[in-house]
């Protein structure tokens, strides 16, 4: 910080996010001169080395893009490839995939709400410090997270990079009785999630609303995971196959993650806020009720309140998991045959952080010719910068250290997953 007229908010290593990024905000008086969310996480070049691999390897390879949301990668991969091959999955496999995704959402949202984001609201450096004053809260968070992980482990063998997802279905499907073992834990988790909605709604939220274009999947009958039309609050309504016609990525020098925009419009927001605002009517009664009691009704335009929305989605995921377990019957075969056949397929699924797009072209030998992957954080990246341009201006009179922390918190509203986005976080607030 130098002089009175301006300053720089600078965070070299953004904490409590997945992956490596930095934030740099240059202020000229009350005005924000420049915002750069710099993603310096080294590029890993997945889309390049997927070429020449067999399509059956794509779910295992793309899972390695992200250790926090491997299932999202596996689901977008299998659905895109199934479309390329023109194969249809068993309805019970579809149900099991929903349960698999519920596990990842519970694990990921519990981690973010309590361990990565709540410490900002309560003024702690981390959850460990928070545990000293709020041990019961943290213990509840850990149990909730563990239940999500148990679902993933039961279906997928392990929490991180599970091994059962396959093109056409699963390598092995669980018995009905194995899934039933989850019921008592999930009943506890449902109650704990409702309490989480209440608890998060008592936090202090800055007065900050933005006009976002929300983008999410929408399905006629259910809150979205793997299927549906891609819709937005500005009237977009497309199939996954049209994604690249309507969205485009561009490369900025300060980031190893590509920026995404809606063609002809600009930045947009994906993730819990978008899903909630566009699919409120598809939430089960228990989740809708919890949201309304917490004073949350669509459209929610304050990104800081996404912590409550994540809690509402925890309620949804627990209720949905219980529904699926009640309806599940093991499919006749764990997967349908996936033949080597040339084709192109696209899919969008709802990762915990928002929509994840995959496209594959495969040849007659089943080998991948081209692959394209657009992760949620890459799509939110420009929107995060746009938020900070507004928010940092509001903080112009704040002491630098506090302003910096608030800006970090604003970034964490997006639960950014930088490892994903580079196939991205540090904060710098400059005032000069």
């Amino acid at each position: 910080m130098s002089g009175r007229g301006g300053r720089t908010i600078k965070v070299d290593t953004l904490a409590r996010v997945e992956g490596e990024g930095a934030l740099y905000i240059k202020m000229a008086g009350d005005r924000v001169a420049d915002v750069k969310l710099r993603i310096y996480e080294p590029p890993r070049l997945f889309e390049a080395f997927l070429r020449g691999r067999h399509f059956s390897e794509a779910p295992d390879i793309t899972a390695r893009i992200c250790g926090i949301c491997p299932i999202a990668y596996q689901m977008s991969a299998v659905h895109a490839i199934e479309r390329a091959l023109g194969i249809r999955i068993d309805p019970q496999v579809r149900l099991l995939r929903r349960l698999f995704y519920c596990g990842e959402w519970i694990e990921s949202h519990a981690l973010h709400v309590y361990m990565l984001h709540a410490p900002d609201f309560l003024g702690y450096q981390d959850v460990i410090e928070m545990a000293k004053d709020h041990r019961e809260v943290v213990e509840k968070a850990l149990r909730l997270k563990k239940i999500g992980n148990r679902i993933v482990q039961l279906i997928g063998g392990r929490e991180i990079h599970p091994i059962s997802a396959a093109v056409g279905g699963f390598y092995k499907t669980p018995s009905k009785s194995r899934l039933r073992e989850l019921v008592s834990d999930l009943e506890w988790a449902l109650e704990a999630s409702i309490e989480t909605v209440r608890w998060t709604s008592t936090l202090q939220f800055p007065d900050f609303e933005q006009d976002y274009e929300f983008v999410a999947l929408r399905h006629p009958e259910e809150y979205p995971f793997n299927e549906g039309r891609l819709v937005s609050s500005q009237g977009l309504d497309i199939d996954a196959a049209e994604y690249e016609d309507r969205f485009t990525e561009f490369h900025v020098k300060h980031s190893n993650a590509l920026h995404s925009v809606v063609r002809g419009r600009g930045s947009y927001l994906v993730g819990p806020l978008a899903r909630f605002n566009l699919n409120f009517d598809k939430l089960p009664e228990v989740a809708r009720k919890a949201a309304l009691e917490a004073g949350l009704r669509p459209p929610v335009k304050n990104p800081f309140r996404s912590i409550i929305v994540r809690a509402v989605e925890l309620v949804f995921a627990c209720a949905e998991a219980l529904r699926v377990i009640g309806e599940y019957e093991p499919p006749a075969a764990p997967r349908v045959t996936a033949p080597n056949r040339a084709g192109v397929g696209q899919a969008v699924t709802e990762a915990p952080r928002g929509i994840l797009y995959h496209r594959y072209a495969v040849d007659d030998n089943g080998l991948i010719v081209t692959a394209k992957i657009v992760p949620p954080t890459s799509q939110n990246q420009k929107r995060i910068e746009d938020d900070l341009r507004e928010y940092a201006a509001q903080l112009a009179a704040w002491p630098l250290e506090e302003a910096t922390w608030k800006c970090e918190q604003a970034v964490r509203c997006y639960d950014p997953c930088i490892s994903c986005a580079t196939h991205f976080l540090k904060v710098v607030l400059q005032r000069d």
Partner: protein
Amino acid sequence: MSSESKHKNKGNPKARSKARPRPTIGVFKFASCDGCQLSLLDAEDELLAVVGAVEIAYFPEATRTMLKGPYDIGLVEGSITTHHDAERIQEVRRKCKTLITIGACATAGGIQALRNWKDADEFVSVVYASPQFISTLKLSTPIAEHVPVDFELRGCPINKYQLIELITATLAGRKPNIPTYSVCMECKRKAAVCIAVARGIACLGPATQAGCGALCPSYDRGCYGCYGPMETPNTASLTSQFRILGQTDDQVSRAFRSFNAWAWQFRRASEECKRS
């Protein structure tokens, strides 16, 4: 100067207790998916006990507190893929009394080492519109190719119980109980029927180090080698077996070239089957 050294405890309003010095741990990330360090947060039952026994001095995924070193134990995740990271690992090594690498990226270069057989510049141009903005090395290499490493914990991802055993053993000054035998031993212990023998499924289990609990075979699929080569793998014999099962040279080569492709035993096996 790397980012770690620039960072101090930024205005910590609730300073950590300083009653008794505990061993300090730093967690450092290079090119990776974050999954291995997440294993620590995934140890839900043990996490509060672990943080009671050690001081988390640097772990950006979990905390804003970033203490300068030195650290008693450094856990390093990820592979070296940029000039900057090649320099940063030297500094991390200097600051850590014991340096432990965790996961396939840090111990073998990871899946991103697939570039090592290709033209990295062409790879960058496939992914990025403006390749000139991207700085990357031609090879993705394990940490031990750059600095001395005290222990390598394998797996993609690592097994969280092995990680806790390793931290506990390091703090106690004893040898960690981490087996170097093959996945086959884990199948035998589970009294599982061998899927390679009984069902003709190509399985990397005989050449792969144990640690996962023989997961893939118990889910009706062949091991794909995510724990990397076992101590003395007979990859030539396994290659022959894969051929008997009808696998093409390309398929065998791809099998060895996944998450531990650059581990020398797998690397050699993947190259030999293409040559013969």
